[in-house]
């Protein structure tokens, strides 16, 4: 009878973390930031149809980096949870914090007990109103959850981009300013990202219930070139 080798919890956690980080680092990063009228989400994404950013509910957006199939499954679960909760209770009872907690539990469980940790990081963004604050919930591959007020960066290159964003941050500006700032942080000083390689969406109050709007390449290009 063969016995499994003993592996210390420290070693196991380290190995799993390294595995997840490597997977995440293979993909491109994304930035989310608040601006004067809402929340802006910008991802580097050459695909026009496989989205990293999407709508969860009236005032909640989702973004994921890393393995597409893994975060897309969580995106679908989030939409189901939100629509199910709003149907059972009321639309105003759907809270991004609750969803972020469920995601955290799931990511944590997969990291500790799953066949392999998920190679993803996700973001749950909520546009505030009189009931709830504007929040960016950042979830790491192992289930760590942080709530940011101003901006969040996801992906393998997060530390560098975060630093670049923070160094030039002058507080909430208009959409154009926020987009310029986010794209500059994403691309760095040595290259520029064309509008067609950017996926951009906002959560913004425009007088209707749903606040999620995808910005087309044309709109993004125009905002960046002026």
């Amino acid at each position, binding site marked *: 009878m063969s016995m499994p080798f003993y592996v210390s919890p420290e070693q196991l956690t380290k190995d799993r973390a390294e595995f997840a980080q490597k997977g995440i680092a293979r993909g491109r990063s994304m930035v989310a930031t608040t601006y004067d009228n809402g929340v802006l989400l910008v991802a580097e994404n050459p695909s026009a*149809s496989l*989205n990293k950013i*999407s*709508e*969860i509910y009236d005032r909640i957006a989702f973004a994921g980096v890393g393995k597409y199939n893994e975060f897309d*499954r*969580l995106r*679908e*679960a*989030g*939409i*189901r*949870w939100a*629509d*199910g*909760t*709003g*149907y*059972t209770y009321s639309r105003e009872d759907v809270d991004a914090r609750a969803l972020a907690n*469920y*995601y955290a*539990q*799931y990511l944590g469980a997969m990291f500790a007990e799953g066949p392999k940790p998920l190679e993803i990081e996700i973001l749950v963004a909520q546009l505030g109103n009189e009931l709830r604050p504007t929040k960016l919930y950042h979830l790491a591959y192992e289930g760590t959850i942080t709530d940011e007020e101003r901006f969040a960066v996801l992906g393998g290159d997060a530390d560098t981009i975060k630093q670049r964003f923070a160094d030039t941050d002058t507080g909430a500006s208009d959409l154009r300013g926020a987009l310029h700032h986010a794209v500059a942080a994403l691309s760095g000083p040595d290259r520029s990202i064309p509008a067609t390689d950017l996926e951009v969406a906002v959560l913004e109050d425009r007088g209707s219930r*749903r606040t999620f709007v995808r910005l087309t390449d044309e709109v993004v290009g125009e905002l960046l070139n002026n």
Partner: protein
Amino acid sequence: MGLPLFSVQEDPGPSFVSYLDAKGASMTLPTGVDSPHATTVVAVRAAGGVVLVGDRQATGAYIASRDVRKIEAADRFTAIAISGSAAMGMEFIRMAQLSFEHYEKMTGSSLSLEGKANYLSPLIQRNNLTTPFLVLPLLAGYDVNRKRGRVFEYDGAGGCYERGDFVVIGSGTPFAESALRLGFRDDMSIEDAVELAALAVYEAGDNDPATGGPDFVRNIFPMIVTVTDEGFSELSAEATATTFRTIHERRTATGGRPGGALR
């Protein structure tokens, strides 16, 4: 309710109803309860869109409510209206609104108008064949793929039929339909269709006790909706009141007789 995750084999896909079924949350109903009924709504095809007019009364043994909204936006380019059990009808509207939006968010693209019409069929079938709370909706909207207005009616078993002219649902149907049959023309302007549809509901309110006509005492009028390439739009309270006042004044002038013409 935790995070609703499904295995690949058991995933319910983008249908909200399939999702509710998968988590075992769809409703079962008691039988033999008397509940209020909602009645007459008409939907008329016109040039570049559709027009819907619906009365506002819910009727049980007595008048249960005078200001029910039987027409709602299912999404930006689609209107859904209900007749039959008011309780089930309201649930139906909610389910349709939620399902279309759910599909759009899950897949990243909207259902076609025909897709929406077909989606309701099994819901009607399931409801009507398993509960005593019969409900008969209609679906009308602007088809953004085909660039024209379309109207769909259903039978009690869930059969879905597209009509080229108009659809009428509810107990006032014989009277409303008669008016529409005489007055309908292909490619009517939206304005003409509004007048005709309003007259049809006025006729139903005049003859059918379960259909509410214009209520000048409470200032409650049948609601008027248009769906065009600009989306779902409800006529303002003033414009609606004016439309029905005009018909009413014409009738008052002739002592209640229609006068042999559509007026």
